[in-house]
């Protein structure tokens, strides 16, 4: 007899036991739903982090900051260190390949004044590459240019919030902002940017961009604003390509360590962060997968249990089938198929439930719903495996029944 025919017969048999099938399915449904749901949510969270990175210069960004003073114990040698300097920047540019952007930024606190407001804020002195590094977008006017640097021009680019605060308009290009004692001409305004990790979040992760006051790094030096020094408050770099990561990042740390003698700096490496995130995600995935598998096993036990419980009533049926010429394997296939079909249905229902769950949560948190084909395959494979594993014993037992004994069973 053809296997397909036996399978069709088995499916018809499952259809004949609707209520029991639904009950058997429940455990598997919940198990698969929890596997899919949790996988989808962790993947969604990770996707959100990637979205943030993509909004702010991509995964190739490497940031270096001076280590905050209080965390550095003050040995003589460390006190002698001058922290990150423009000399470091030149050394990196000259000696470490693999970066296509090396952008220092200096921050000075200064009193800002316009006809409308007067307040002390941090001013960022940077170069044209700063915009590309952090993916700043200009809404009006232009960003700092090489000419500004070469001529130490007294020009400023404002974040959207600062533009509003000092000029009360979206487009104050051409107006004058006093920075300390000097008059700076506003040449550009940045786009207003927002990024919330989820819908209930009120903290704008891109808020710092809206609060920028950018001036050419040379303009500050030329006007001797603040303490005259070659110190740098922040150094941003961008890897030319992901494959440079392995060489270029350790080389950067080594160079700075060699130049400073102490580790008075911190390197924040997005590639590393991404790797950590993936590893962390994998831990979550495994944890939730184990939970899901536990519930699948429970579901499988329910399947086996109900199959064993209904076994008694079906012993006679097996006897009849054998009297009509069914061989052991016919019965085996019928029983095994029944549990696989039952758990398969459960897997499918669980998948739908899990997907619905992911979309519902994603909608509530305003997060990306991420579902990969791997999840679908994993869910169905888990369900089918449960069916085979837990259907096996009842199927073998049924196949081995002695027809005489089976027929005699009431």
């Amino acid at each position, binding site marked *: *007899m*053809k296997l397909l*025919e*036996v399978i069709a*017969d088995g499916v*018809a*048999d499952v259809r*004949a*036991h609707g209520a029991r099938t639904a009950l058997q399915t429940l455990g598997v449904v919940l198990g698969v739903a929890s596997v899919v749901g949790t996988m989808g949510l962790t993947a969604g969270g990770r996707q959100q982090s990637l979205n943030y990175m993509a909004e702010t210069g991509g995964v190739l960004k490497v940031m270096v900051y001076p280590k905050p003073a209080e965390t550095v114990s003050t040995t003589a040698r460390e006190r002698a260190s001058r922290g990150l300097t423009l000399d470091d920047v030149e050394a990196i540019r000259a000696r470490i390949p693999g970066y296509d952007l090396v952008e220092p930024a200096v921050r000075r606190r200064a009193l800002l004044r316009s006809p409308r407001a007067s307040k002390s804020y941090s001013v960022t002195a940077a170069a044209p590459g700063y915009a590309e590094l952090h993916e700043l977008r200009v809404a009006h006017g232009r960003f700092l240019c090489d000419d500004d640097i070469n001529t130490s021009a007294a020009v400023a680019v404002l974040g959207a919030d600062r533009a509003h605060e000092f000029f009360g308009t979206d487009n104050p290009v051409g107006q004058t902002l006093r920075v300390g004692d000097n008059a700076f001409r506003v040449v550009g305004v940045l786009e207003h940017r927002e990024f919330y990790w989820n819908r209930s979040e009120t903290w704008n992760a891109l808020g710092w961009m809206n609060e920028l006051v950018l001036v050419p790094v040379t303009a500050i030096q030329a006007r001797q604003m603040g303490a005259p020094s070659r110190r740098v408050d922040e150094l941003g770099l961008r890897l030319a390509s992901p494959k440079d990561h392995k060489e270029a990042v350790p080389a950067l740390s080594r160079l700075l360590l060699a130049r400073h003698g102490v580790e008075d700096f911190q390197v924040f490496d997005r590639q590393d962060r991404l790797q950590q995130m993936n590893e962390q995600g994998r831990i979550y995935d495994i944890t939730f997968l184990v939970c899901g598998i536990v519930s699948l096993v429970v579901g499988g036990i329910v399947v086996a249990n109900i199959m064993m419980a209904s076994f008694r009533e079906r012993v*006679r*049926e097996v*006897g*009849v*089938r*054998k*009297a*009509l*010429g*069914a*061989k*052991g394997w*016919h019965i085996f296939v019928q029983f095994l198929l029944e549990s696989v079909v039952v758990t398969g249905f459960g897997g499918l229902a669980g998948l739908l439930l899990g997907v619905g769950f992911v979309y519902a949560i994603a909608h509530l948190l305003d997060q990306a719903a991420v579902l990969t084909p791997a999840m679908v395959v994993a869910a169905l494979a888990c369900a089918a495996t449960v069916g085979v594993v837990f259907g096996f014993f009842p199927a073998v037992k049924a196949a081995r029944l002695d*027809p*005489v004994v089976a*027929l005699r069973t009431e």
Partner: protein
Amino acid sequence: MSQTPLIRLEGVWKTYDTGEVQVDALRGLDLTIASGDYVAIMGPSGSGKSTLMHILGCLDTPTRGSYLLDGEEVASLSSGRLAELRNQVIGFVFQTFNLLPRASVLRNVELPLLYGGVNRDERRARAREILDMVGLADRARHLPGQLSGGQRQRAAIARALVTQPRMLLADEPTGNLDQTTGAEVMDVFDALNGIGQTVIVVTHDAGVAAHARRVVRIVDGQVSEDRARAA
């Protein structure tokens, strides 16, 4: 008759070993049944007639002795071959009908053909044909529970006949039926035997046995009486 008998049992023993005691259900039983015969097997309970029926039906094999079914030695066959014999050579009719309750009458009748490897279209055609023969053509889509007792037994007979077996083996076929429907079922057997179908009926009902042409009485695992009835 010169042809090979359909059934030849020689010195058949069946011993059940329960662990503590050994019970001999059949003790060196001899029996020969020719093709086309109509035999009633009678006997008190515990006589071994059920065991005999199981062995005749290839549901069980003798502990000792020889059982030639259509020239083939059954005692030494594998369970797979026994299943094939049950499927191809034997048609069972049970006291309690034993129709699968959740399958339609048509599916029930198709089932032996399914196990026999007959394709779907032919299966359906043959099942319908045989249902028509037993007068249940209009009940093909019904579930067994929707039929009367007599209809159920006729459906069961249709299922037994669908593979065109060499013999029909019925175990108390009227035991669950009232007298009238029981008589109707026996009429079906009579008619089948009339067109050459071998029929073996196991019963303790003398009225049922009266339909047969030959009555074999079993006592203590042996044939105690074997007589042909006057036609």
